[in-house]
C-alpha cells in the first residue's frame, strides 16, 4: 500500500520483475549460488492507444546490494524511519514451508518484498529525492565506496551511552516500538503454529476419501454416493495448501512492520546520540567556564594537574596565567559555537524526525487496518470453500 505522491513516482514506474539464479566467485574465490533480481524502470506516462509501451530500462541486483543501499540511507537520513527489507532468512516458518533461501516460493516472496521496499522509498517525501537511490535504480556501476563510509558511521550507533535528560516523546516512542516488536513476533510465532495444526486437520480428512472409496466397493446402492463423497473429501484435504499459501502474504505484511520497529528504534537511538553529544558539549563548556572562573579568581574548586603542580611547585607567572586564560577563552568561544551547532542540530533532528514519525504512524495505521481486512477476507474465502465442499459431500450422501 503506497501512495503515489512523490515527484519520482510521477516520473517513473518501478518494478522488480524477475528473479534468476547465478553462480559466481565470491570474495574468497569460492563458487557460490545466489539470486539476482531484475529492476525495471519505465516512464510513468500513459501509453497512447494502439501504441506499444516503451521498453523498460533494466538492471540486475542481488540482495546484498539492497542491504548496502539501505545502510547508506540509514546513515544519510538519520531522522527518517527507513523502510525495511524483506527478511534475510525465512523465519516464523511452519513445517511445510521451506527455510531454504533458494526455494522458489521464498524467492518469489522476496521479490515482492524488494519491490515493496523500492516503492516505499520512492514514495517517501525525503528519501525519494536521494541521488544515490536514483543511481541504484538506473546505473549499473558499483558504488561500494559510498557504502563503506556509511558502514563505519553506523558502528558508532551501537556504542553504549546514557542520556541525562531523555526526551519524553522519544522514550514513549521507543517503548511503543519495543512493544510492537514483541507483540508482532509473538503473533507470527503463534500464527505459524496455528497454520501447522490447521494443516493437520485438513489433511487427515483425506483419509476419509480413501476409506470411502474402499467401502464403496462392497456396497450396491450406496456405492456411488460414497465414492463421490470420498472425492470431495480429497478436495477438502488438498484445499489447505492454497489457503495457507495465501496466508503467507498476510504474514509478510506483518513482518514488514516488525522490521519497521527496528527502523523506529534506530531513529530513537540516533536522537539519543545527538542528545548525548549535545549534553557532552554543554557539559564540556560548563567545565571550561568553571576553570576560567577559578583561574580568574584564584580559587581551586576543580582538581587539575596544573593547579596541583602550581600549588606544590609554586605559582606560575602572570604571563603564563594570562596565556592560559586566553587559550581557555578561545576554547570557550569554540565550545559555545559547538553547543549552538549541536543544539540546532538536535532541534532540527527532532523537528524532521517527528514529521516522519507522524507520517509513519498514519501509514502504519492505514496499512495494518487494510492487512486485517485482507485477513478477514481470506478467512471468509476459506469458510466459503469449506461450505462448498461439505455441501457437495452432503449431496452425495443424500444420493446413497
Amino acid at each position, binding site marked *: 500500500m503506497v501512495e503515489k505522491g512523490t515527484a519520482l513516482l510521477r516520473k517513473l514506474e518501478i518494478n522488480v520483475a524477475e528473479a534468476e539464479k547465478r553462480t559466481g566467485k565470491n570474495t574468497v574465490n569460492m563458487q557460490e549460488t545466489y539470486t539476482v533480481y531484475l529492476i525495471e524502470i519505465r516512464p510513468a506516462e500513459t501509453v497512447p492507444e494502439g501504441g506499444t509501451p516503451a521498453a523498460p530500462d533494466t538492471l540486475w541486483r542481488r540482495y546484498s546490494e539492497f542491504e548496502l543501499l539501505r545502510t547508506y540511507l540509514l546513515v544519510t537520513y538519520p531522522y527518517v524511519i527507513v523502510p525495511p527489507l524483506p527478511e534475510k532468512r525465512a523465519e516464523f516458518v511452519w513445517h511445510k514451508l521451506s527455510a531454504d533461501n533458494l526455494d522458489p516460493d521464498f524467492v518469489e516472496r522476496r521479490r515482492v518484498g524488494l519491490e515493496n521496499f523500492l516503492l516505499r522509498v520512492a514514495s517517501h517525501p525525503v528519501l525519494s529525492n536521494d541521488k544515490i537511490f536514483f543511481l541504484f535504480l538506473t546505473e549499473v556501476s558499483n558504488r561500494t565506496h559510498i557504502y563503506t563510509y556509511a558502514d563505519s558511521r553506523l558502528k558508532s550507533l551501537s556504542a553504549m551511552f546514557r542520556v541525562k535528560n531523555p526526551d519524553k516523546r522519544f522514550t514513549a516512542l521507543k517503548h511503543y516500538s519495543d512493544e510492537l516488536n514483541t507483540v*508482532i513476533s509473538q503473533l507470527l510465532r503463534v500464527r505459524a503454529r*496455528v497454520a501447522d495444526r490447521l494443516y493437520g486437520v485438513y489433511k487427515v480428512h483425506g483419509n476419509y476419501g480413501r476409506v470411502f472409496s474402499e467401502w464403496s466397493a462392497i456396497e450396491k446402492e450406496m456405492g456411488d454416493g460414497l465414492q463421490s463423497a470420498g472425492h470431495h473429501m480429497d478436495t477438502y484435504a488438498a484445499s489447505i495448501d492454497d489457503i495457507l499459501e495465501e496466508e503467507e502474504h498476510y504474514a509478510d505484511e506483518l513482518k514488514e512492520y516488525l522490521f519497521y520497529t527496528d527502523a523506529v528504534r534506530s531513529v530513537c537511538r540516533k536522537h539519543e546520540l545527538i542528545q548525548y553529544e549535545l549534553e557532552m558539549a554543554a557539559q564540556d563548556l560548563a567545565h571550561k567556564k568553571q576553570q576560567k572562573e577559578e583561574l580568574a579568581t584564584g580559587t581551586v574548586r576543580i582538581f587539575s594537574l596544573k593547579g596541583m603542580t602550581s600549588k606544590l611547585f609554586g605559582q606560575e607567572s602572570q604571563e603564563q596565567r594570562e596565556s592560559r586564560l586566553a587559550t581557555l577563552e578561545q576554547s570557550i568561544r569554540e565550545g559555545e559555537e559547538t553547543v549552538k551547532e549541536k543544539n540546532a542540530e538536535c532541534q532540527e533532528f527532532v523537528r524532521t524526525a517527528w514529521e516522519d514519525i507522524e507520517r509513519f504512524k498514519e501509514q502504519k495505521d492505514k496499512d*495494518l487496518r487494510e492487512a*486485517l481486512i485482507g485477513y478477514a477476507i481470506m478467512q471468509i474465502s476459506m*469458510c466459503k470453500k469449506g*461450505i462448498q465442499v461439505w455441501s457437495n459431500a452432503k449431496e452425495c*450422501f*443424500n444420493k446413497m
Partner: protein
Amino acid sequence: MSAGAPRGLASSGQKPITEILHPLSAAEETLSPGPDVTVSGGGEKDSGLTNGTPVETSSPASASLLFNRLQLDDDLDGDARDPYASTETRDLFVTVDDPKKHVSTMETYITYRVSTKTTRIEFDLPEYCMRRRYQDFDWLRIKLEDSQPTHLIPPLPEKFVMKGVVDRFSEEFVETRMKALDKFLKRVADHPVLSFNPHLNAFLSAKDLNKRQGLALLTKVGESVKHVAGGYKLRTRPPEFCAMGEYLDTFAQKLGTIDRIAQRILKEQSEYVTELREYGTVYSSWAGSEEELRRPLEGVAGCVTTCCGALEDLSENMSQDFLPVLREYVLYIESMKNVLRKRDQSQAEYEGRLEAAILRKQEDRTPMPVEVEKCQDKVECFNADLKADWERWQSNKRQDFKQLLTGIADKNINHYEKCQAAWESLITLLQEKQTEDKTSETN
C-alpha cells in the same frame, strides 16, 4: 412352507412419541400389495411371519393389520426403484427419554422413561409409560435372543464401563446411552416378528418384569433350539451366506478405520483450538497498545474466539453423535455374524441327522424320522428369516448411514457458516470506519 417373509421396511423413526400422529387418526386405505408381499387374510397360521417353532404367538389378526393397511412411509422419498418401498403402517411407537438418577442404600442407578403408543390388541391399553433401567433392556435382549434364535437382535450399548475411566452419571454418557437404548427399542418395535414377542410386550407394559411366570415355558423351548445344534460340521455353506459373512467382515473393518480417522480428526481439532485461543489473546493484547487500530484488533480477537467456540461445538457433536453410532454398528455386525453362525450350526445339524437317517434307512428300511424333517424345516425357516432380516438390516443400514453422514456434513457446514458470519460482520465494521475516515478527510 411360507412364501417369503415380509420385506417391509420400517426404518426406526426418530421422532419423539408425542409428535407422532396416532395411527387411527389417518384414513384407512385399501390394500394394493407390492411385488413380494404376501397378502393374507385372517385364519392362516403361516402368514409368512412365523417360522417352524411354536414360540411365535403372532395372531392372524395382527398379521392382517400389518398387510392390509398400506401407506407410504414418509422417510423413504417414495423410492420407485426400491422393491421394499411399499410398506406397512406402524402401529407400535416407542420412545426412550427422560433419564433420572435413583439413589438407594444398595446402589445408585439411572432409569429411563419408556413410552409406548399402540393400537395392537396384544396390548391391554393404548398407551404405557414405564421406568426401566439398563438391566431391564439387557433382560429383554437376552429373552429375545433366546426366544428368536433365527432372527437378528439389535445390539445394546456396552454394558460394562470402567469405573474411574468413564463417569457413568455424566450428562454426556447418559445422553449417549439413552440414544442407543432408544434406537435399540425402536429397531425391535419395527421388526415384523420381534415386535410381537411377548417379552417385548412385558417390557413395555408390565409393572414388574421378573415376575412374569407365563414366559418361563416359552424361554425353555427357546433354549432347546439353541443348545441342540452342537457337534455337527457344516459341509458347504450356500454362497449367499458366504457373501454375507465376507461383507460383514469388510464392513466392520471399514467402520473401524472410519472410527480411527474420526478420533484423529478430533485430536487435531483440539490441538488446533488450543493454538487458536492463544492466537486470539495476542491480538487482544496488541489492541491494548494501539489507538486507531484498537477496535480492528479487538474485532479480530473476537472473531477468532467465535471460531474457537464453533469448532469446539463441532468436535463435541462428532464425539457424542457420530462415534457412538459407528461403534454401535460394529456391535450390530457382531450380532449378525452370530446369527450366521447359528444358521450354519442349524444346517450342519440337519445335514448330520439326514446322513445318519439315510444310512439307517439303507440298513433296516426305517422311514425318515420326524426330527430330520423338523430340522429341515428349521433350516429352511432360518434361511428365510435370515434373508429377510438381512434385507431389512441392509436397508436400515443405508438409512442410518445416510442420516449419519449427512448429519456430519451439516454440522461442518454449520460450523463454517458461523465463522463466515463473524468475519463478515467484522469487515462491515472495519469498512464503515474507513468510509467515515474518507469523508472526514474530504470535508
